[in-house]
């Protein structure tokens, strides 16, 4: 097997006395969706933040294409092609789709000593990239605030892909979305994977994970409960692992199997 895009070895993260991560290992290959599941407070967000350079791990190693890395800032992680889409921090609602899409990477046009932002190019590319993701914008100058939650996620994903992400991390992209919008985001995750990009997909929802995942890792109280390949595990087993086994089984009985 080829070297994974990213390999995280025995990652530990302590916040004072709190051990948020107690030795988690995880890897993602190119063109693969690796789902990270776990209950609230399991450490999923903390884990991907060490991956994207927001937190420095207390212990453990991060390998990118087999080379050891030491991220000092999100910028470092971005430079090696790691893009993260955070649920609520993805977009600025008052700014246009174009301005959001190009934020931090604005295309420049020069007139002698003056350089301006090339809005013509920026608008055209934004429209095209959004269309690829199945969103027809009314106009690129439309404020992001007028988009639905799923559409905003999609703008963020399109942006990451356009700027050459090799590894795309999505932190609970579907948790606030309705059925149709979830389907659309999942379809876009699939589209991204088919371009050879590795995806880390965080979710609480086993069905969303099952819909797109190639591998599944379950975190519980800062430790992995193991990784399974698609087809090796049933949704019920995953669900049980996430909830820490027995408790949910009894709960499920009383709720008539609706959880």
């Amino acid at each position, binding site marked *: 097997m080829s070297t994974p895009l990213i390999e995280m070895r025995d990652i530990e993260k302590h916040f004072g006395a709190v051990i948020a991560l107690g030795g988690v290992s995880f890897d993602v290959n190119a063109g693969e969706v690796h789902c990270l599941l776990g209950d609230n407070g399991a450490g999923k967000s903390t884990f991907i933040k060490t991956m994207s350079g927001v937190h420095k791990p207390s212990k453990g190693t991060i390998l990118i294409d087999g080379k050891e890395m030491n991220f000092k800032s*999100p*910028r470092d992680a*971005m430079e090696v092609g790691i893009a*993260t889409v*955070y649920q609520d*921090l*993805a*977009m*600025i*609602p*008052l*700014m246009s789709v174009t*301005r959001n899409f*190009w*934020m*931090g*990477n*604005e295309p*420049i046009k020069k007139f002698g000593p003056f*350089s*301006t*932002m090339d*809005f013509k190019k920026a608008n055209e590319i934004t429209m095209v990239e959004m269309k690829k993701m*199945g*969103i*027809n914008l*009314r106009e690129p100058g439309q*404020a992001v*605030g*007028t988009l639905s939650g*799923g*559409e905003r996620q999609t703008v963020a994903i399109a942006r990451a892909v356009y700027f050459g992400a090799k590894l795309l991390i999505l932190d609970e992209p579907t948790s606030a979305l309705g059925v*149709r919008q979830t389907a*659309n985001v999942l379809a876009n995750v699939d589209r991204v994977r088919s371009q050879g990009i590795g995806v880390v997909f965080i979710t609480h929802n086993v069905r969303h994970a099952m819909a797109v995942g190639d591998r599944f890792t379950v975190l519980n109280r800062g430790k992995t409960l193991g990784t399974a390949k698609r087809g090796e595990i049933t949704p019920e087993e995953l669900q049980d692992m996430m909830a820490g086994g027995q408790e949910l089984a009894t709960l499920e009985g009383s709720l008539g199997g609706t959880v």
Partner: protein
Amino acid sequence: MTDERIKQISKFRRAMIRPELGAIAGAILVFVFFMMIAGDSGMFSPKGIQNWTVVSAQFAIIAVGASLLMIAGEFDLSVGSMIGFAGIVIAILSVQWGWPVWAAIMTAFVVCIALGALNGFLVIKTGLPSFIVTLAFLYILRGMTIWLSITTTQKTIIGGVKQAAEGDWLAPLFGGTVLKGLFQWFADMGMLDTFTRGNRIGQPVVEGVPMLVVWALGLIIFGQWLLTKTRFGNWIFAVGGDPQAARYVGVPVNRVKMLMFMFTAFTATVFATAQVMEFGSAAADRGLLKEFEAIICVVIGGALLTGGYGSVVGAALGALIFGVVQQGLFFSGAESSLFRVFLGTILILAVILNTYIRRMITGER
């Protein structure tokens, strides 16, 4: 995501959703109003026009700085005190210490921009609201200004700057008048009244365009261009809209904020220098309440107090409304205290309108 769900909004509504809307409407209203009640008072004679243009230009200069800073998500309440401070620095250095005026002006700029940087530095490093940090500087600078003035001259007004500026190369850039030839030509062609008595007989009543107005126009054009056309402008919006989101995509948030504090200080110093050159003196109480007047201009211009949205042209229109109303009340012989009543009222109306416009943009989410 389907086409039929995208409601076509009318061209009209789209044109409505812009920060300057309220200011454009307000400016038209204010002009119509004063044409009606003060049309024959000389307010719209060449001299009258010059009068309110200069007042509006003063407001506009500091409003440009305040608008960019507010869009970047911060306030500067020390602007008024800085105006007083810069003026006193220029007067002490040139009149008391006998420095050439150009050197005094340049020193004032350097010191004030450094103070702007200090404001920015403290806001960034402490994470405190700029409201508090710059409020502290409102007091510190005002106190320093009075103290400096008293200890060096035993007075709070320092005159004699005009004489000191005689023949200086930099002073006319702030206190001079341009296009004099053109205005003389207007007068010769009979399009402009001339003095009929006194030692300026034959000269036009309006000598030319004051440099103050040139500065205002230059700053408005530069500010609007920077904000809407450049990469840096996109960063200003991003930093004010959501600093964390901006930081995650690599926007140098702290640098943008710092530069905006420095630019605001720059505009305050331009204001101060032009004022000192016009009056020929500096006074320790100059610039009182200017920080709030600048903020009101910016808000009338459609900027949101929370940052991330606004317009330089809007702020300039806010300054125009300000100038026209202040001088208009004077021309129409109204009680000048009514100006403050007007200010308070228009401020509330502007904020309500802005909130409404923001809801239209963000679709109430």
